[in-house]
């Protein structure tokens, strides 16, 4: 944007942004660029929280946020945009309030919807820079392809357990997410943070790196992460970067054979997964009834031992998912078997495996131990 068309700063803004204004690489012109900028944050969760707070504080003029979730207690360990009093509220309502408190000069545009192939281009088109703070592969590929098609930089961040990644994709000459990972893993192979856990401060580390990259792109300063992937291991306390090359055969940014958005659930294999619903299942209430009347049911919990210690169902036994294939000798094909996990996804994979090797009388506990806690025994804690 030409300097003449950049918005002026009010006296209040001059006081507020004083520490930026005395930075030679930002100064008044840079702060006016920040005020003129329109940034879209996809996801108001772990990464979206520090992103929204720091970009608002820094004076980015317009922040769009896409999310459709409500705040849950289990979010608060890392999603610092939301507070205890926000439990049960929409994340966007909570975000708007918090952002207005941090910096009332920021205009928030709330998109309370799931980002889909039907709405992504229309939403993303309205912004200068997109920040990927989503929590699933389908939305990451959707965000990437939409950014490539529209020519919008995609500031990427991703986290799992103690490790995180960040980069900048889809700039004019840079690589895109598909250059790094041409295809997603099959569903169920990589646990989500809900299943595998995440260190609460890790999204703070990655989210602030994403926010830094956004500000550098707006100001046009420094060396961005275009063409580099930053890898953080918070346990080892190491940061390193590796090269991300633009793949001339990339269907999105190389050959451009992707000319429109596709079905990303299908691309990520979601309809074909052994996910809950596609394998035989039993409800928590029905399982409780069978156990109450003394039916011979082998209830096998496929979670990890540390999850078992938090909560388990009396009478169940533990075989963590990765040990199921090597534990077949202990599972009687003649008995009824019910497999359980936290929410039903991992146990569905185990049911699928057992059926694949010949077991016939095996069911998945629908909704997992969460459903058991909700519908059968509230003394079993949820986590």
């Amino acid at each position, binding site marked *: 944007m030409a300097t003449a068309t950049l918005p002026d700063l009010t006296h209040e803004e001059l006081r507020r942004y004083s520490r930026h204004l005395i930075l030679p690489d930002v100064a008044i012109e840079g702060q006016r660029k920040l005020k003129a900028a329109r940034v879209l944050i996809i996801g108001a969760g772990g990464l*979206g929280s520090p992103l929204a707070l720091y970009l608002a504080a820094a004076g980015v003029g317009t922040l769009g946020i896409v999310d459709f979730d409500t705040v849950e207690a289990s979010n608060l360990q890392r999603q610092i945009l939301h507070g205890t009093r926000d439990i049960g509220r929409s994340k966007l309502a909570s975000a708007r309030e918090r952002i207005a408190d941090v910096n009332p000069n920021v205009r928030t545009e709330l998109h309370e919807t799931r980002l889909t192939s039907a709405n992504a281009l229309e939403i993303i088109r309205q912004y200068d820079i997109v920040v990927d703070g989503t929590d699933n592969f389908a939305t990451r590929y959707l965000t990437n392809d939409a950014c490539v098609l529209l020519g919008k930089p995609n500031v990427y961040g991703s986290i*799992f*357990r103690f490790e995180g990644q960040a980069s900048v994709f889809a700039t004019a000459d840079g690589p895109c997410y598909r250059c790094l990972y041409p295809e997603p893993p099959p569903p169920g192979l990589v646990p989500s943070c809900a299943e595998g856990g995440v260190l609460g401060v890790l999204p703070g580390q990655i989210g602030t790196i994403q926010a830094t990259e956004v500000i550098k792109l707006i100001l046009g300063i420094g060396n961005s992460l275009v063409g580099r992937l930053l890898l953080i*291991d918070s346990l080892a306390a190491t940061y390193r970067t590796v*090269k991300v090359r633009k793949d001339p055969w990339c269907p999105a940014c190389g050959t451009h054979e992707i000319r429109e958005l596709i079905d990303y659930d299908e691309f990520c294999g979601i309809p074909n997964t052994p996910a809950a619903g596609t394998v035989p299942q039993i409800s928590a209430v029905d399982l409780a009834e069978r156990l109450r009347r003394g039916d011979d049911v082998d209830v096998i919990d496929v979670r990890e031992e540390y999850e078992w210690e938090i909560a388990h169902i009396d009478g169940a036994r533990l075989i963590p998912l990765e040990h199921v294939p090597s534990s077949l000798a202990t599972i009687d094909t003649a008995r009824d078997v019910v497999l359980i996990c936290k929410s039903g996804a991992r146990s569905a994979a185990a049911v699928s495996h057992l059926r694949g090797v010949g077991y016939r009388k095996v069911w998945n506990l629908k909704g997992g131990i969460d459903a058991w806690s909700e519908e059968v025994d509230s003394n079993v804690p949820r986590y």
Partner: protein
Amino acid sequence: MSVTLHLPAVLARLADGNAIESTGSTVGEVVGDIATRFPGLGARLRDADGQPYPFVTFYLNDEDIRFHGGFAATVSDGDEVTIVPAIAGG
């Protein structure tokens, strides 16, 4: 050639740590050596045809091996191979 293979925590538990010493003349041979020593890890690093998965990126030092011949990329003494699987948490 003696090389060091770096694993993310999620894969390191299938081996005996997150930095493993290995030998081979190509990345594929290094991965083969590791897969033999840690069978649980092998299937996470290469598919049934012995090829890398599109969602697990191998770096030879700081270069993506896809642009250097894939598993045929040759390694030198002291090289570092880093495995970076796709993650999606946010």
